[in-house]
């Protein structure tokens, strides 16, 4: 069933991540929706027609690290609308207005629209928010580099969401390399490419920890892109999610333990951009983060070292939430153990009394039984 304590633990973590992330069916729906938005923005009668707009996902939606908001609201999915403006002078404000205008010309989108500071939000009730950020390629063009609106909408800032995603995917590749090294053939769970890597899961868990830990102090919380970059930076390819999470948290703890200037997190796809600038602007947020990540490191180390399944469940509930933890344990039994029992493929290893797949050497199959007795 599980080859080791770590394997069992990783299975629970994977289920916790599944409870947190955008479900695959909703992901597919979101793709349909944003393609439709793109078609509308770029259609023959669109006022944006001349600029060959393209629309693509960025952020956690693109790299597969979505985590549902703490309070059960809809997922926020980030999209980039790239308009090929070339050398044309146009402030972000003007471009944002034009995108909004085009969307409002559509009867349905007009009802769903909300103008945010730098993007247009389309709310699909009970599904998700699509946040559309208007951007333009740099001039002269420079690979995947784009220009995004600054906070005041008067100037453009360099950014590189495709570049960031490519960097993160490259770090994830370490996981697949490690898997290939070990296995003669692909392991069943990772056969299809859509299976998450340990880095993606570690990034999800780190963001969820942040959401829980900073619930009452959201303004001081580190940005998701900071956490994701830290995860990718310190990841060395550990196949196990618990090991990957542990080494990332350990290394972030070391990096932030030194007194003095805050550790700087720069955008790997845009090195002039300091993603962690809040830590320099507000040093107390840095000190708070350093203390909390050290506490997480200690907690994670003690979970690894010992404690039975109940202690593990209690610790995971405190870090990631009671409901998602309970659902993960419930699903593990209901989806992986009980179905095998129903078809007679569950047994117990005689050396240890541990639940195992049957038939197998050293394993006694569990015969059909009905638990009885008083409630």
């Amino acid at each position, binding site marked *: 069933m599980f080859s080791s304590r770590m394997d069992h633990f990783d299975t629970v973590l994977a289920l916790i991540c599944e409870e947190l992330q955008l479900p695959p069916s909703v992901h597919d729906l979101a793709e349909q929706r944003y393609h439709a938005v793109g078609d509308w923005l770029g259609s023959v009668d669109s006022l944006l027609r001349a600029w060959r707009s393209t629309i693509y996902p960025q952020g956690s939606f693109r790299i597969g690290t979505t985590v549902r908001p703490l309070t059960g609201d809809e997922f926020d999915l980030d999209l980039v609308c790239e308009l090929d403006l070339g050398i044309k002078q146009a402030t972000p404000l003007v471009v944002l207005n034009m995108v909004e205008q085009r969307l409002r010309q559509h009867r349905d989108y007009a009802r769903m629209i909300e103008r945010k500071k730098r993007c247009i939000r389309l709310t699909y009730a009970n599904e998700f928010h699509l946040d559309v950020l208007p951007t333009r390629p740099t001039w002269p063009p420079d690979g995947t580099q784009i220009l995004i609106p600054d906070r005041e909408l008067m100037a453009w800032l360099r950014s590189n969401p495709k570049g960031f995603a490519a960097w993160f995917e490259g770090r994830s590749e370490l996981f697949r390399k490690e898997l290939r090294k070990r296995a003669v053939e692909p392991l069943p769970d990772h056969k299809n490419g859509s299976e998450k890597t340990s880095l993606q899961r570690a990034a999800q868990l780190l963001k969820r920890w942040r959401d829980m830990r900073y619930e009452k102090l959201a303004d001081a919380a580190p940005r998701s892109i900071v956490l994701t970059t830290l995860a990718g930076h310190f990841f060395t390819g550990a196949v196990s999610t618990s090991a990957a999470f542990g080494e990332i948290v350990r290394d972030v703890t070391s990096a932030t333990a030194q007194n003095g200037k805050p550790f700087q997190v720069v955008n790997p796809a845009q090195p002039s951009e300091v993603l962690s600038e809040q830590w320099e602007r507000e040093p107390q947020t840095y000190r708070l983060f350093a203390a909390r990540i050290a506490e997480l490191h200690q907690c994670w180390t003690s979970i690894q070292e010992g404690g039975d399944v109940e202690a593990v469940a209690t610790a995971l509930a405190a870090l990631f939430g009671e409901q998602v933890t309970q659902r993960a344990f*419930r699903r593990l039994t*209901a989806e992986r153990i*009980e179905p095998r029992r129903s078809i007679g493929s569950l047994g117990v290893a005689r*050396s240890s009394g*541990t639940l195992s797949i049957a038939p197998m050497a050293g394993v006694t199959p569990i015969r059909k039984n009905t*638990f009885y007795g008083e409630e």
Partner: protein
Amino acid sequence: MILARWPGFHLVSRGKHYAWEGTLQSTPLSPAYTIRITCADWRSPKVAVIAPPLEPRADARIPHRYPDESLCLCLPEEWTGERYIADTIIPWTSLWLHHYEVWRITGEWLGGGAHPPVEKVEPISEGREHVPNPVH
């Protein structure tokens, strides 16, 4: 048979009442439970968990146990004297322990099961007596 197949088990008493003790660890994260199987005769072996102690939840008693706290592993008709304890009782106990652990965490018993019929007694509400229908 038990001793031959289950190296973690040993005989602790023989004669009128046979008893074996051994450890079972349902999953790698589980603790190793010491259990005792007692047989007065081959009719109905009893299984008790010696250590670590089983704990109820704040809101519920431990499901699927007999009043003497031994484990309910099967319906009466699922145990026949010819069955070897080694092939039934011990594997069923490991599964019971797993479901107990998950019940502790989630509040749900996911192992299925049945309960013996309970004789319902009507409470007598104030001012009225429950009078059974007259039999003619």
